[in-house]
């Protein structure tokens, strides 16, 4: 009886913690690295039930030449930590304006992805691709944008400072990843990462993602400025997120082929 009550209480506690990922952890520091990373995943990729954002990126290569990307994103979660739908509408550069991207992200299998090319009026299905390659020509990887499954890595809590958890994550399988491990510095209050550094087999940090700005939108801590640096080439990409709105009530039925051809303006503006 006692054990049953305890289990029940633990379950309720976990449910409360998971459903309010941005509430400060008042009960003291967390000790379980996996739980910390799960909550980071939830805070970063599953905030609210749905959301919209305008994303601007500036790509700077090693020679100082820069390019821009601008796109609007609509997201709706099917289940926290699980499947999600994304609709991405490109606005810049000029030669890809009107290109749209529909992603049905699956927690346990390859994502389904479609790309719409407006010039040809062609809805192209995209084959599953390496998640750790450039996202639309930026220094971000697909995985940085849609989130890496926490279960793909083993997590170890290295340090707990006054404000941050420091977690080392090592991939369970080295196939398809270019890093030996990476370290996350995670804010104890918001569970958002402040810095992620990727280390190669030689022990060298070759890639870094830094959180530059966090804003509170509708009570939800949201990363609005990020910088990703390719330390080998010297190139980097800055990302700026604006026009964020959560819990708009975006319906599930806009994540269909029709929306690729004709994006739903009601939710984008």
């Amino acid at each position, binding site marked *: 009886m006692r054990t049953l009550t305890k289990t029940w209480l633990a379950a309720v506690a976990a449910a409360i913690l998971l459903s309010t990922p941005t509430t400060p952890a008042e009960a003291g520091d967390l000790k379980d690295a996996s739980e910390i990373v799960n909550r980071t995943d939830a805070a970063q990729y599953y905030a609210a039930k749905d959301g919209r954002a305008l994303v*601007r990126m*500036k*790509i*700077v*290569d*090693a*020679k*100082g*030449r*820069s*390019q821009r990307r601008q796109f*609007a994103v609509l997201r709706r979660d099917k289940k926290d930590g699980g499947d999600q739908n994304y609709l991405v509408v490109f606005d810049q*550069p*000029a*030669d890809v*304006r009107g290109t749209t991207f529909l992603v049905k992200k699956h927690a346990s*299998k*390859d994502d*389904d992805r479609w790309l719409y*090319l407006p*010039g*040809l*009026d*062609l*809805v192209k*299905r*995209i*084959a*599953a*691709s*390496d998640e750790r*390659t*450039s996202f639309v*020509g*930026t*220094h971000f990887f697909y995985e940085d944008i849609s989130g890496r499954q926490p279960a793909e890595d083993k997590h170890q809590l290295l340090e707990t400072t006054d404000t941050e958890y420091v977690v080392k994550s090592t991939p369970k399988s080295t196939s398809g990843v270019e890093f030996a491990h990476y370290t996350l510095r995670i804010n104890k209050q918001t569970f958002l990462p402040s810095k992620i550094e990727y280390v190669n087999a030689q022990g060298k940090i070759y890639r*870094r993602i830094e959180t*530059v700005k966090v804003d509170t939108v509708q009570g939800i801590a949201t990363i609005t*400025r990020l*910088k990703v*640096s390719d*330390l080998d*080439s*010297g*190139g*980097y990409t*800055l990302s*700026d997120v604006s*026009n964020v709105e959560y819990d708009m009530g975006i*319906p599930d*039925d*806009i994540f*269909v*082929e*029709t929306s690729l051809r*004709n994006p*739903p*303006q*009601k939710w984008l*503006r």
Partner: protein
Amino acid sequence: MRCLAVVALVFAALAVASGAFAQSEISETPEEVAGDVEPSDDAGEDDWGEFDEWQEEEGDSSGGKASAFQFGGFVEGLTGARVVRSSASANEFTAGEARFRLNLDATHEIASARFRGDVYADAVTERVWFDIRDASIFVRGGNWFNMRVGRHVLTWGTGDFLFLNDLFPKDFNSFFIGRADEYLKAPSNSAIVTFNIKKVGLDLVWTPIFEPDRFIDGERLSFFNPLANGIGGVGEIIGDRSPLTPVDPLLPEKRLRNGTVHGRLYGTAGAYELAAYGYVGYWRQPTALDLTAMQATYARLATYGASVRGPLLGGLFNVEAAFYDSFEDRDGTDPTIPNSQFRGLVGYERELFPKFQMGLQYYLEYTFKYDELVNNSLWPDYEQDEFRHLLTLRLTQLLLLDNLELSLFTFFSPDELDTYIRPRVTYKIIEPLAIIVGANLMFGRYDYTFFGQLKENTNVYARLRYSF
């Protein structure tokens, strides 16, 4: 003379572009190289400040206004020349054009208007062309119904450069001379109505006035004409030297009953996409013959088909089939009307290495009533085989943060012994400027096969595009 002037202009543009490229290479200063060593904080206030300016520039594009207006487009030069000897065509150039494209978009929550217009000076045909690719209005009637009316480009089906159930107009001249891929599709004046009920969609398209393909008519590209020396004579490849070109086919009368109707019913079952298609109209190319006028014309056609597409072994597969019902000659005995056909396609694509994609397709055309066809044919020696097989291979590699694309697309028919190879390099020099260099290589043992007839058009081309 004019032709030469345009070509000179394009080359001048190319020269300027390569100069700009060289300059940006030189601008690599020692300070910037030093920045590589300590890149952690090189994004200073200035770097981020740019976003604030950027926001102001476009502040009104998403600020809750009733409607938004956008414009864009590009300027492009294209030069292409034959690299093989051609006895049929006097003009050695397959392309020489300077093009201006304007894109306009007005967007409202429930309606939007779109314009895509090209004007280009074409040195090959010595004309200035206006080509409105899109002038259409879209209306959204809730989540379950919408429509687009006007002139626009339409596409559906699962093939890669192979169209079975897509009977919308295509422009094969553009495809074989190195214009951008989008020009393979030609616009039509059509209305499309879409109904969405849960996960099922229904598209109905009506094109009141039949819009044929922009087919190869001999003026720019040469092709095989089995009647070049009359009925029973020896066929030959004809081009701009022949008095029979440009081919001017007899079009269906502009009557209400001569319009074309296309339909598609589609939906998903898990990760698999299923679709059924139908079409009633005409063959897209003038493959019929009007014997009284001795003119090429379009026979009536209905098609029915289906497709499925989904994930398989880390990649994607697609299967598509279509039945071409040439219902004016179901017996297959009328030599002036093409016979009915079955067309099938199986495809598979996947990423072999990061940023390296491979796509394979097998395509089959089976002609019904083949014996009747050959027995009655006006050119039995030149008819395609009962079974025509085609294999395609696509390889695409993206490099330099997707700024450099190496692409190869190959068609090969093992029974017709002909091939078409499309290598292409696309390089985005700086953000608005891209250079594209490629070739269209056609080979064939026989002059009368699908790609073999195009062998005298083998060309290389260069394009330079500035987008805004």
